[in-house]
């Protein structure tokens, strides 16, 4: 059976499964729609959270990035997992005890302020749309590569599927669909990794194979990799090029940002009890860790395989490099998509892949008769091309396509739901039409979800240039605006409305201003970016990706100082804080 037919069957079967689940788990109330009626078991919730969290970026891009930057890629591995510890210890159980529907709702009640609610809604919508645009693009790419349809057609199919289960099933439909999507994506990720691990080291567990010896030699994989990449002029694989403070700050911004992302926080509103919220965060991270500990193994093995393919013989010997005429078939397929490129600069008909930006290596390259790097590989193809590079059967490749689509769709659906809840629950019911009936609110939620899908589809079809740039901003924003005020609201009774609003705005504008200054987001017409984005210009040597940490610290300081200079919050708010700190309900008389 041809790859294309097989891919249609596997992807089609997975879609049928998702839609079937959505029909079975239709939402009947706003409680079902926003938080799945608080009836989801902690294990199922953990799996759904994992699928929600792991996006097209985790599935498709992360291992490829690690393959090319080695140790520096650790910021993503630690940053996108460590935040769950903060969630489980500092936020999830208390927000579950609070027991409402959305993150802005918590901020509104804790800080007894509609202004705070509106500020939180704006942060939430901005963060979520940034994310969703990237997901829809991912769906389009996978469709166009594996089903060989136009990106637009792929996008419309993806939108229609998400529409069915997000609008119909709300959080309940999404949660159970995500459980299925987790199973598809994790299977699709680990199967090729296991095959490749066996091929290279003979050890079937990628996490161990990564630290094993290459089969038939006495050399460990990572040592061999360090050796070959440095002999081609690249930086050593197992050490970094970024400064320590920058690695520290980026990791921290990603961790705190993860804990401040509304679509992740809201998952912990769906479990029955406070203690389920704690353990559910543990399950979520366990399921995430399966992919995240496999990814660096995939990255290192992909880099090793790639170099071995183009440099089968000794470096510097004329026939040590791959003859272009003898290139493998995967090379050909990806070359047609433009994501792999070969430019025979020295006209010898062979492929030279090395670091031509390294002045120390230039002399050597000249001696070899190399006139520049001739191979360009898009980082995003490493995971998708890996099974082909390793020569695995077609069904594995079809599975990877289904996994990539599952990862993108599950994240998109989760994000669309928080956007729809923010509009129907926080804006319409919370601010403009407080007396709205439940049936009409549910309808408003569905209309908002449908509208959000259309906007997301448009952003995916014609992504504005800022999508890639604002990902750092989305995390920095979540870290600098939402996380501190939620945390302080639980742990410091003295924090009042004035402190929280001042803190959020300080964190938000500082982080936004810094990123605008160095990367340029919305003020390009006014001449942004104004500063050259190089380490020498950065504040304390911190890049725009990591600056959310400083924004977060400023938010904390401003919120504490302003709160202490103004009147304490009303007594009933202090009682509310005492109430959320203990799992069992406290009666009025015991306050």
């Amino acid at each position: 059976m041809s790859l294309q037919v097989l891919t249609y069957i596997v992807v089609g079967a997975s879609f049928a499964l998702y839609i079937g689940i959505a029909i079975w788990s239709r939402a009947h109330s706003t409680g079902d729609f926003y938080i799945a009626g608080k009836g989801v078991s902690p294990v199922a919730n953990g799996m759904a959270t994992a699928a929600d969290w792991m996006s097209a970026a985790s599935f498709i891009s992360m291992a490829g990035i690690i393959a090319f930057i080695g140790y520096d890629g650790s910021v993503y591995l630690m940053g996108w997992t460590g935040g769950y510890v903060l969630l489980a210890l500092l936020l999830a159980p208390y927000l579950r005890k609070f027991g409402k529907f959305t993150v802005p709702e918590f901020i509104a009640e804790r800080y007894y302020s509609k202004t705070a609610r509106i500020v939180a809604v704006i942060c939430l919508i901005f963060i979520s749309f940034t994310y969703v645009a990237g997901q829809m693009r991912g769906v389009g790419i996978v469709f166009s590569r594996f089903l060989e349809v136009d990106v637009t057609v792929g996008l419309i199919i993806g939108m229609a599927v998400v529409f069915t289960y997000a609008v119909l099933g709300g959080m309940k439909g999404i949660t159970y669909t995500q459980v299925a999507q987790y199973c598809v994506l994790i299977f699709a990720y680990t199967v090729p990794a296991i095959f490749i691990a066996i091929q290279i080291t003979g050890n079937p567990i990628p996490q161990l194979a990564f630290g094993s010896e290459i089969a038939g030699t006495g050399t460990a994989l990572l040592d061999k990799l360090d050796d070959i990449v440095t002999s081609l002029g690249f930086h050593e694989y197992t050490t970094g090029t970024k400064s320590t403070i920058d690695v520290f700050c980026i990791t921290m911004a990603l961790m705190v940002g993860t804990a401040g992302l509304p679509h992740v926080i809201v998952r912990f509103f769906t479990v029955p009890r406070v203690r389920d919220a704690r353990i559910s965060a543990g399950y979520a991270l366990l399921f995430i860790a399966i992919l995240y500990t496999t990814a660096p193994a995939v990255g290192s093995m992909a880099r090793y395989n790639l170099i071995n393919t183009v440099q089968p013989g000794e470096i510097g010997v004329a026939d040590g490099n791959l003859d272009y005429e003898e290139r493998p078939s995967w090379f050909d397929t990806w070359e047609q998509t433009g994501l792999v490129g070969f430019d025979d600069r020295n006209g010898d008909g062979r492929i030279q892949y090395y670091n031509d930006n390294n002045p120390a290596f230039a002399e050597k390259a000249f001696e070899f008769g190399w006139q520049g790097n001739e191979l360009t590989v898009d980082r995003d193809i490493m995971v998708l091309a890996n099974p082909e590079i390793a020569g695995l059967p077609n069904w594995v490749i079809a599975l990877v396509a289904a996994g990539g689509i599952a990862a993108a769709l599950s994240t998109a659906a989760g994000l669309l739901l928080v956007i729809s809840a923010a509009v129907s629950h926080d804006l319409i019911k919370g601010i403009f039409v407080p007396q709205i009936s439940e049936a009409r609110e549910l309808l408003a939620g569905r209309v908002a979800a449908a509208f959000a899908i259309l906007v997301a589809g448009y952003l995916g079809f014609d992504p504005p240039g800022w999508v890639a740039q604002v990902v750092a901003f989305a995390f920095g924003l979540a870290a600098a605006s939402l996380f501190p005020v939620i945390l302080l609201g639980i742990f410091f009774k003295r924090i009042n409305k004035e402190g929280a609003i001042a803190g959020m705005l300080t964190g938000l504008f500082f982080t936004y201003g810094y990123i605008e200054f160095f990367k340029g987001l919305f003020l390009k017409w006014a001449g942004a970016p104004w500063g050259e984005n190089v380490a020498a210009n950065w504040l304390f040597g911190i890049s725009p990706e990591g600056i959310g940490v400083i924004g977060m610290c400023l938010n904390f300081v401003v919120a504490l100082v302003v709160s202490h200079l103004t009147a304490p919050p009303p007594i009933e708010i202090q009682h509310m804080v005492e109430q959320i700190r203990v799992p069992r309900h406290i009666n009025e008389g015991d306050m």
Partner: protein
Amino acid sequence: MQRSNRLRYWRANLRLVAICLAIWFTCSYGFGVLLVDELNTLRVGGFKLGFWFAQQGSIYIFVALIFFYAWRMNHIDRKFDVHED
């Protein structure tokens, strides 16, 4: 549910959170970032130790920490009689 009992419960919780976060910080930022060069001089199998903490070890420890916290908190909830149902 006495107020003083709740305060003692809250202090026990904060103590546990502080211990867990100290471990969280040490294993990721300590071993994986700040001390990575020193630890890289040691080896575990085919891994340099600092690199292993940054790309593998810290993640395993994060998972274990959350389960540990959930387990200890269930115990503390019961001890101070603030557990649900």
